[in-house]
């Protein structure tokens, strides 16, 4: 059997990434403002509103604590929307993928292009939030320069899971289960709005298995200048699990598109 996973993917995937970027730029007004609304609401309602009733959390003001979670969820939510509804629409409704794989571009390359495009959108979105946080004076340490690459990885991992789901479902309505059962729990339970240590131990364990918990902790540690040795394990876990999911997603999408 010929390789259909990541090893068979050539740089031609960038041609499809460019197609998505071209469409995004043409519709930038529709893309920038709405996608900023949700993270802004989190910052103002939870960070500043609810946060004013909360004493310091782990020794820092609540807004400083929650910033990493808001950033992370801005990245993963955008990537997830792009690679669930967005990709499904391009695949099933517009038949765009079929048009693309009738050229020398392969199904694996389309998959990696969609995932990396979802990651790009997540990065773009969280970068807008970083700018707002800078104005709010939340970001004070130089290590913050490592946050955008982390956001790219966070968005990439969720884009890959989303493509895996998209490649398996027959109709869009299944995404409701995916959002309710996985994406929203991740958004709220992975140490985003309060420390994972609040949970009973069994749930803590589950939370740490989900790479997003590591990503949020890495982000927060950088933003608060609280570097620790566990960060290396977190980084390795994030990269390995993302690679595995990406491989599975690429193979699964190949099976979906080439039968």
């Amino acid at each position, binding site marked *: 059997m010929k390789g259909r996973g990541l090893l068979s993917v050539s740089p*031609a995937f960038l041609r499809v990434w460019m197609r998505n970027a*071209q469409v995004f730029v043409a519709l930038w007004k529709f893309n920038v403002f709405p996608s900023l609304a949700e993270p802004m609401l989190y910052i103002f309602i939870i960070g500043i509103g609810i946060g004013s009733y909360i004493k310091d959390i782990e020794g820092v003001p609540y807004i400083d604590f929650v910033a990493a979670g808001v950033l992370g969820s801005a990245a993963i939510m955008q990537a997830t929307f792009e690679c669930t509804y967005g990709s499904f629409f391009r695949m099933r409704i517009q*038949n765009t993928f079929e*048009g693309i794989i009738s*050229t*020398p571009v392969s199904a694996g390359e389309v998959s990696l292009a969609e995932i990396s495009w979802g990651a790009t959108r997540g990065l773009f979105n969280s970068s807008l939030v970083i700018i707002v946080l800078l104005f709010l004076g939340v970001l004070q340490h130089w290590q913050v320069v490592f946050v955008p690459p982390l956001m790219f990885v966070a968005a990439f991992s969720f884009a890959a899971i989303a493509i895996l789901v998209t490649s398996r479902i027959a109709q869009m309505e299944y995404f409701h289960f995916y959002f309710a059962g996985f994406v929203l729990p991740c958004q709220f339970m992975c140490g985003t709005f309060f420390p994972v240590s609040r949970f009973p131990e069994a749930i803590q364990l589950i939370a740490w298995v989900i790479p997003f918990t590591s990503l949020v902790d890495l982000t927060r540690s950088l933003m608060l200048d609280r570097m620790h040795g566990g960060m290396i394990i977190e980084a390795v876990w994030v990269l390995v699990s993302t690679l595995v999911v990406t491989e599975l997603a690429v193979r699964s999408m190949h099976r979906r*598109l*080439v*039968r």
Partner: protein
Amino acid sequence: MVIEAQALNKRYDEVVAVDSLDFQVDRGTCYGLVGPNGAGKTTTMKMIYCLVEPTSGTLRVFGMNVLKSARAIKARLGVVPQENNLDPDLSTWQNLMVYARYFGITRQLAAGRCRALLEFMQLSDRAHSPVPDLSGGMKRRLIMARALINEPELIILDEPTTGLDPQVRHLIWDRLLELKERDITLLLTTHYMDEAQKLCDEIIIMDNARAVDMGTPSELIGKHVQPYVLELRVHPAMAAGITRRFAHMESQTSGQNLYFYGDTAGDFDGILAAYPDVQRLLRPASLEDVFLKLTGREIR
């Protein structure tokens, strides 16, 4: 030889989509696949442009195995799919430019080809229209232009003219014949037998995943039907009486229509004299008669 299929099979679980198909397509010819919906035509085509993988048998395109050299094969062919899959997020011009990029064609070269192809398909004035604003005929012409962007040696057309007005059909036929003169190979499916007869050098008639027969249009007509057909529009109850009375002539009944086949127009004189008031049409036999004879007149 541009396409060689031997004992080609495609199975999906219990369903056999294509069953032991053998055929060869020579360079510079137009080859037609005809058959009822669900006969396996689209699956056959998708195996050739590497979107469907054969279950067994061999399929070589440009001498290369479709399972091993998909990328190299796809680089040299153009596809007009049954369902329009233009990119609705892009304009006419952008559709061609973005598609050219999938082939790795440089911007400069692509821009020149886009201009020429829009001209060729008479779309130059719509270069900057968004795709959703184009009419059905324009979308089809744009798909044709897109299929030519990589200067393919083989063009695969799945029902290229379904649902189009006669003007656009004639334009597409003209262009296809022009491409054939340039030694480009064409493989097409169609439900219009006049189209198959006009364009195709050779035809396969498919039914239930198998090839029922193949040959040139005139061979097929000569082999399966007599040169003349008389169509009578009669009540089914009356049809039985007529066929009994003229039992020595070959006939076929379908709903309200009764068909008689003959070698000369004079063969039908007896019938015409006996039923002067019945609505009738006497015409030369066509590929459509062959098609209906081989695949049956019933809807499936």
